[in-house]
């Protein structure tokens, strides 16, 4: 059979790559599962599939479940026990995890009873608990495995506004509040990192934990701060900057797609990541992000919050320059993408006269 022509693999000029990208990421969404994923022991229901994709695209401040991958410096990464040790150092344990905290509102005291069995499992001693509690002001009495605190009087509600209540009297309400604070006091580990599990990677052991406190984890000298990773894109942007956030978006979307065996060309994923980050800050896809900041009034009005956009446009006498796709569709003109960007002119002088 005879052969035809070879095709150019270059992207054609004026191709509407944005729409193709949106379709290429949106269309497989219909085929994705809604299931959450189980990272052996770490955060239970890490969203994958469609919910996770929506989360990434929304650029949420705090994703439902953050995961942090903590890689260790080579001297710690080789053996499991070494890594386990670091994992224990990192995972946060609160007073309430290893002790019962009870407040007695009659005597205005708080009693903390250390639970030895729980403590042993976590490698926590009574002294550690005591140390954690000592940071609170007040009279502290130790009795066997329990500590009784009589809060000092100057404990005050932090709000300035209720000045009258700031009398030097300890209220039951304040004691309740304090007991809550004691429950949340950190006995060991890094706040915001929990349930650390050691995982064997390609050639080394690393720690996977819930949470996203990158800076906190990096304070541990065993942690290789150059390779630490979290799936919390907003946090990556805050700490490492927008370029890192872009790469994280690419990585996260790709992971979602790969997990479901849905293949999407990396170019599409890169484009969406670039669109979300090119302005210098992380922007979501939707009315609070990219779509809400589009230049065209009509385009914004046609998407969501129609009235709001029209009203603001007229109050501040905005101009609609009709440069976007929707805007031109609304007024019934050719859309400025693809062949709509090209004009063809024919010279008529050679026309056959009859």
């Amino acid at each position: 059979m005879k052969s035809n022509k070879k095709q150019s693999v270059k992207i054609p000029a004026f191709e509407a790559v944005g729409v193709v990208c949106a379709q290429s990421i949106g269309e497989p969404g219909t085929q994705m599962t809604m299931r959450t994923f189980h990272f052996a022991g770490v955060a239970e229901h890490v969203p994958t599939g469609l919910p996770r994709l929506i989360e990434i695209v929304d650029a949420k401040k705090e994703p439902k479940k953050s995961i942090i991958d903590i890689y260790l410096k080579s001297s710690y990464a080789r053996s499991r026990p070494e890594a386990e040790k670091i994992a224990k150092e990192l995972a946060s344990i609160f007073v309430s995890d290893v002790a019962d905290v009870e407040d007695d509102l009659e005597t205005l005291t708080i009693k903390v009873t250390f639970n030895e069995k729980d403590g042993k499992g976590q490698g926590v001693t009574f002294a550690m608990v005591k140390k954690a509690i000592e940071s609170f002001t007040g009279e502290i009495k130790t009795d066997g495995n329990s500590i009784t605190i009589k809060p000092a009087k100057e404990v005050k509600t932090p709000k300035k506004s209720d000045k009258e209540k700031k009398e030097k009297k300890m209220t039951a309400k304040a004691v309740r509040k304090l007991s809550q604070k004691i429950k949340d006091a950190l006995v060991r580990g890094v706040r915001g990192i929990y349930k650390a599990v050691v995982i064997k990677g390609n050639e080394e052991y690393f720690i996977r934990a819930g949470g996203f406190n990158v800076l906190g984890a990096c304070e541990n000298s065993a942690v290789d701060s150059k390779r630490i990773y979290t799936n919390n894109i907003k946090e990556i942007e805050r700490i490492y900057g927008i370029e890192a956030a872009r790469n994280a978006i690419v990585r996260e979307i790709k992971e979602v797609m790969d997990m479901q065996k849905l293949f999407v060309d990396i170019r599409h994923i890169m484009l969406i990541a670039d669109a979300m980050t090119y302005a210098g800050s992380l922007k979501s896809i939707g009315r609070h992000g990219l779509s809400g900041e589009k230049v065209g009034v009509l385009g914004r009005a046609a998407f969501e919050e129609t009235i709001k956009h029209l009203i603001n446009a007229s109050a501040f006498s905005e101009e609609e320059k009709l440069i976007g796709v929707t805007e031109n569709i609304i007024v019934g003109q050719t859309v400025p993408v693809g062949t709509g960007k090209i004009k063809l002119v024919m010279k008529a002088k050679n026309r056959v006269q009859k």
Partner: protein
Amino acid sequence: MMTQMLEVQKVLDKLKFSLFSPEMVRKMSATKIVVPDTYDDDGYPIDGGLVDTRLGVVDPGLRCKTCGGTVKECPGHFGHIDLVRPIVHVEFAKHIFYVIKSTCPSCHKVLAKKLPVADIEKVVDKVAEEEKPEPTVASDSQDSQTTSEASKTESTEAAQNVEKVAKKKAKEKGVRKCNNCGVDLPEIKLLKPTTIFKDKDMMLPNDIRDWLAAINDGDLRTLGFDPLYSRPEWMVLTALPVPPVNVRPSITLETGERSEDDLTHKLVDVIRINQKLEANINAGAPQLIIEDLWELLQYHVTTYFDNETANIPPARHRSGRPLKTLAQRLKGKEGRFRYNLSGKRVNFSARTVISPDPRIDLDEVGVPEFIAEELTVPMHVTEWNLERCKNLIMSPAYPRAIYIIRNDTRRIKVGDTPEMTKEQAENLKVGSTIERQIIDGDVGLFNRQPSLHRMSMMAHRIRVLPGKTFRLNPVTVSPYNADFDGDEMNLHILQTEEAQAEAKHLAKVEKQLLSPRHGHAIIKPQEDHVSGLYFLTSDESHFTKAEASSMLYLIGITELPSSDVKGGKYSGKSLFSMLLPEDTNLKVTSKLGEEIIIKNGKLVKGAVESKATEGELLEKMFVNHGPEFTKNFIDNSTRMALEAISIHGLSVSLKDYTLSTKGSEKVKGITDKMNREIDNLIMQYKNRSLERAPGMSLSETLEGMIMEITSRAREDAGKVVESDLGNTNSSIIMAKIGARGSLLNAIQMSALVAQQTVRSKRLLRGYKGRLLPYFKAGALTAPQRGFVYSSFHDGMTPYEYMYCAMGGREALVNTAIRTARSGYMQRRLINALQDLVVYDDMTVRNADMSVVQFIYGGDGKDPMYSSTAEVGDGGKQDDIDTA
């Protein structure tokens, strides 16, 4: 020469949004509306009423008093209502509030203006600090605030300015004084929706209006307004524009009764209260009564703009249905914007049920005759096609012209008597246009909703066929995601040569064989085509001369090559090879585990299955030989495959899913073993000797282990099924070569359905601690937790049937939720990215020309060819870098 109409193409360059001043409202008003009524007793519009004929007309026969036009000609004219007392426009209440908050009650200067810049910064810092107690966070949020602000659009920025000034002012403590005149500043509060309080006193709209009117232009600019186009006092209405009647047409019911539009009803209310208020004022009624009426007028004007305003009851129709007022008309999916402006209705389209036709080409669409008779294409009459056009006009039956559009743009219907058509044909001149019925070979855009990707709308060649359905080649169902269980599709006929050319060169089916999503073939042999090709090319397939010639004839080869197998027979491999271009080389391991080798266009080894037909073979062919060639290959291989499968035969019967006694026993053995293992685990769990898996509770560990055992049981049963049913079983063959179905289907039909799950866990719902009331609470064994021992062949027990229903329901609910969620996500994605275009310098830019990527995808390659990108020209990385 011909009097070709030189149409001046008008292009809208820009639009400007602004506010109407009351003067403007009155100026453009055709009449003042004073009567709160519509028609008089004779059914004639009342002068000065809401359907005054000066506002335009909706009844045929009447003429507009302003422009003299009839229903069709008159564009409609605005009227107005003079409000006796000013009324706050709901939608602008927030703007008014911020302006009042930001200006001095006495000198009407902007409060922040006199502050030196440094002071403003100090105040802003202070505000930020107060909001966020932690100093580090505060500086962070401030940074991001300033960066995000830089990219905000005009209006939001302006709104923020106003807001910021107001906010900052509110944060200052004690009695604040105006920086300009030193007067004490009152506390301003907004009580939604429209009431503003000054200290503890309610401000009357006319006070508000006076305040706003006193702000000078310079101060307004500071606040972000352009006083030429919008002054804040215009946000307090003194004249209410009344939309033309054709915006709110009344409908006549069959009974002859008139039913007015919701807007008209609302306007009636406004006028009525307005008049009552006027009468009371003139009669010198007590202030209390006047204020009550004023408030009522405010309510009616508010609901006239938006009947879903928070905190006020919606105005209702007599029937109790809430009225649809202005905001409701614009808003949402069924609103003016999304329903009418973004989505436009079209002519020259058809919709009907689809059905398969493997004998038409894949780029064709079978169009029923009755549709072909209805749809037309414009045909410009030139000296070269004059004769043809004349024949089309004179034609008495199907391919005929329906309209003639003469040079003077008059549209004439082609007559239905031979005499008339003859005359019309004779009068036909070069330069006119005729509209002729579509014929074979015209292109149409074929579409199936939901249009999730660009392959949901492709150009097909029309082929007029008898019947009432659209026919399409079954290989094209995958891009459309269609099936033939009653699906309907749409066909659009392109009306300009430009559109037709674009369709042919860009949207044609064969150009879309590869998906731009991943670069792999999306139109590829499926189901019976794959089976057919497998039977065609398997080692023992030999065909007689008659069979071979019928196959080759189908693909347009009329000369029979010499036979290559003894006995004058032809091997299927050699017949298949005739489809391949000479430079085809392929080496893949098939799904059956054997090697498939194609060398220089000859199939040397192996039987072709889905892996060979869909992947590399098609993609390379597409890049190296072009879309058309690839299309022909698919069409021809389909034809041969179908012929081969007809010769070979492929069917299934109930017997194919019946396990032998031995097989059934083996399956029984597997489930028995599974039960034992599970019982064992449960025992360990109960006496606490089960070891807890890291990060899981004991019961979670147990569940995880049981799930593992049950899925292993199914796998084991799979092996039994595979060996028991054997390799000659059609179902197994189809599953293995990737034509249709999977081994799982065969297992569930013949061996056992296995574990049912909800949320990837064994079933546990329905009753307290148990699945069904007949079980003990806390039951953990397989049969009590959703394991189905029966096969579909044997039939299920009632329990098992219930389990399947539970698992099935989850699947149904999930798909329903998923489609809704992913649909919205896609809408947002499209909306956010639709303006991104690759320019000829390979940069990806937004509508405002800001660069998003410097080189598309980092290499400028089309993702459509990404899987095969090493072939072809112009795609090398170096080529792009120099560009």
